[in-house]
């Protein structure tokens, strides 16, 4: 619509000004992605560079018959769903509490960010010690309360280990969710609540018909962020179990295939599928929830 108002030289200038940014994006985003895709079509192990050749979609066909990959896929989806659901639930609760006036609220709002501020590798080490079977504080407390007869190796039991990781992850990322939701709560005009009270709405109705609908944009944004992050989870798993005891997620498997086995072809195929899953998840959020919740007209 500006076309008519711009002279040819102005258009050239505008294009020239955008060009560097386009180049940067092309160079640091599109090119590596394209390169990964090309690699994913090859059988290429850095240990045997001479045997490099194209297998086209052979790596992808193998992926969906590889039990390690399928197990990692299941683990990743389970981790993502459970941790994001817990974070949303707990984060919303925390945000609602922090949105009420009480003594020392500023301090609480700052303090709640601490888990988020600690680098994951460090907080994961902390959890590793707390989960330890011989010296861990969690076993110590449970033993003193006579809730368990003997210490439990939380990270060494299949089935239990994944939950232990989910708890460590929720502890860390719930504050992020809470703060995003708190920001959303603060822009809801007080008048709406007053009107609802006059109409006779109770606490629950006010939450359901006023707070929740108006909070939807904030919920959507935090869900997109957290789902993508959770799907790509690496550090907390890598430190706590290294992928043992049924906790190997896609990115942990990807790192192993890429850097421990130096299998660049197969590793790239895994990377490309991770990208595809994240792309689909984002699309689902924006198309599905976005339209229903009137974020996109």
């Amino acid at each position: 619509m500006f076309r008519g108002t711009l002279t040819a030289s102005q258009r050239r200038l505008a294009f020239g000004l955008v060009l560097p940014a386009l180049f940067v994006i092309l160079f640091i985003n599109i090119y590596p992605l394209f390169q990964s895709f090309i690699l994913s079509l090859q059988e290429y192990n850095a240990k045997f560079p001479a045997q490099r050749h194209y297998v086209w979609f052979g790596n992808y066909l193998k992926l969906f018959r590889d039990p390690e990959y399928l197990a990692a896929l299941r683990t990743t989806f389970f981790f993502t769903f459970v941790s994001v659901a817990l974070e949303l639930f707990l984060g919303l609760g925390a945000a609602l509490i922090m949105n009420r006036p009480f003594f020392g609220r500023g301090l609480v709002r700052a303090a709640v960010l601490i888990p988020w501020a600690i680098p994951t590798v460090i907080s994961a080490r902390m959890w590793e010690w707390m989960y330890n079977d011989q010296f861990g504080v969690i076993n110590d407390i449970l033993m003193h309360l006579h809730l368990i007869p003997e210490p439990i190796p939380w990270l060494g039991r299949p089935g239990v280990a994944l939950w232990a990781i989910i708890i460590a992850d929720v502890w860390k990322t719930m504050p992020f969710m809470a703060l995003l939701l708190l920001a959303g709560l603060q822009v809801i005009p007080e008048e709406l609540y007053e009107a609802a009270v006059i109409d006779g709405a109770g606490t629950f109705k006010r939450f359901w018909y006023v707070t929740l609908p108006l909070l939807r944009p904030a919920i959507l944004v935090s869900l997109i962020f957290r789902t993508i992050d959770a799907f790509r989870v690496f550090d907390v798993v890598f430190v706590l179990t290294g992928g043992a005891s049924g906790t190997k997620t896609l990115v942990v498997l990807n790192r192993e295939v890429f850097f421990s086995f130096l299998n660049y072809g197969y590793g790239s195929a895994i990377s490309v599928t991770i990208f595809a899953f994240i792309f689909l998840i984002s699309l689902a959020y924006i198309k599905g929830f976005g339209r229903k919740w009137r974020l996109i007209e």
Partner: protein
Amino acid sequence: MRKVGLILVALLFGLFGIYGISAEKITLIVASGSKTSPSYAVLAKQAERYMQMHPNIEIKIQEMPWSSTLQHDMYATWLSGQLPYPDILRLDIIWPPEFASAGWVIPLDEYIEAAGIDLSDFLPGPINGVTWQGKIYAIPYFTDAGLLYYRKDLLEKYGFEPPETFQDLKEQALYIMEKEGIPNGFVWQGDAYEGLTCDFLEFLWGNGGDVLDAQGNVVIDSPEAVEALEIMVDYIKSGVSPEGVTTYKEEDARNVFQRGDAIFMRNWPYAWKKLNAPDSPVAGKVGVKPMVHGPGKKSAATLGGWNLAINAYSRHPKEAFDFIMYLTSPENMKELAIEAGLSPTRASLYKNPQVLAANPFWKYFYDVLLGARPRPVHPRYPEISNVIFTEVHRALTGEITPAQAIKNMADRIRQIVGGGGG
């Protein structure tokens, strides 16, 4: 335009400065263990001496992380990017076939011949480990082998001889645990990582099994292998080993043993110095012996150790080789043994009174070292090891039976060795 030109000139000078083209000194970068590892201080001292003797050479030490797996992955990233440094790499004994077949390190035979160096003093195990298809790719720097640590005081108190078989260890452990109220009998490395492969191999070899035969065929699906894994699982089920051993690495096991909370421990020689430190609750109460084994079978130790190799993209391989031979000379290796407690790769040093005075238990250790066995020699060893520790760990945590784990191992290792699986 002129400004751009100036900036370019400045940048070029900067680059030349970094790559040392304008400098007359040759810079060698040598990889080392982490700053907290015992070898770091000794290496720094020896590098300092070398620089005084060779004023044209500057040696820089590049610190690497503790974990062998992480070191491997960093090297892999650098070398597949053809980075010319570090000039001197420190290779774990399991990497030479892989690095050699990738063309990341150079064969040293020509240099060895040209300098007229005699390698016959070096122990056979480490030399085998650095040889791939008839060529030598690294010089052994220090070596390692798995050992069984035991509480000398407790065994004597109850009149036990140090255990020989898997069954001996179980009986002694259960008896003393009961009498002394000690929570654990035997701790080892049960987490799913390289350390578990080492431990499992000692059970496997000590029970008469193996992974690959001399021709490279996969022979792991044997009754001996299933039995070896059943013994490990039984240690956990019967309470000889804590259930949490499936999360232990070397230091976790040592922490438990050093607190006096276990009677036996499988670990590497490095633990000796720490166990006998003045503030250690078990100082002076610990004995070492070769690992336990099956009835009528021979004890086996997994060979470990680190070796110095030359980066194939290094600009100064000749100088790098000279510095490697300096570090592995008898005098410097002796210093490393006495000050850092690292086991020499030269046989003659095990008869040296000063070395033995600093590390009295090496008298026994020498025989263990001579019998120590290399892990499966194959360029795709990291994948083979990953299969081994993953499946063993599944059996240890009760996810699958030992027989199923061994069958999975055999199938998957056959795929890897046969070139399948990418």
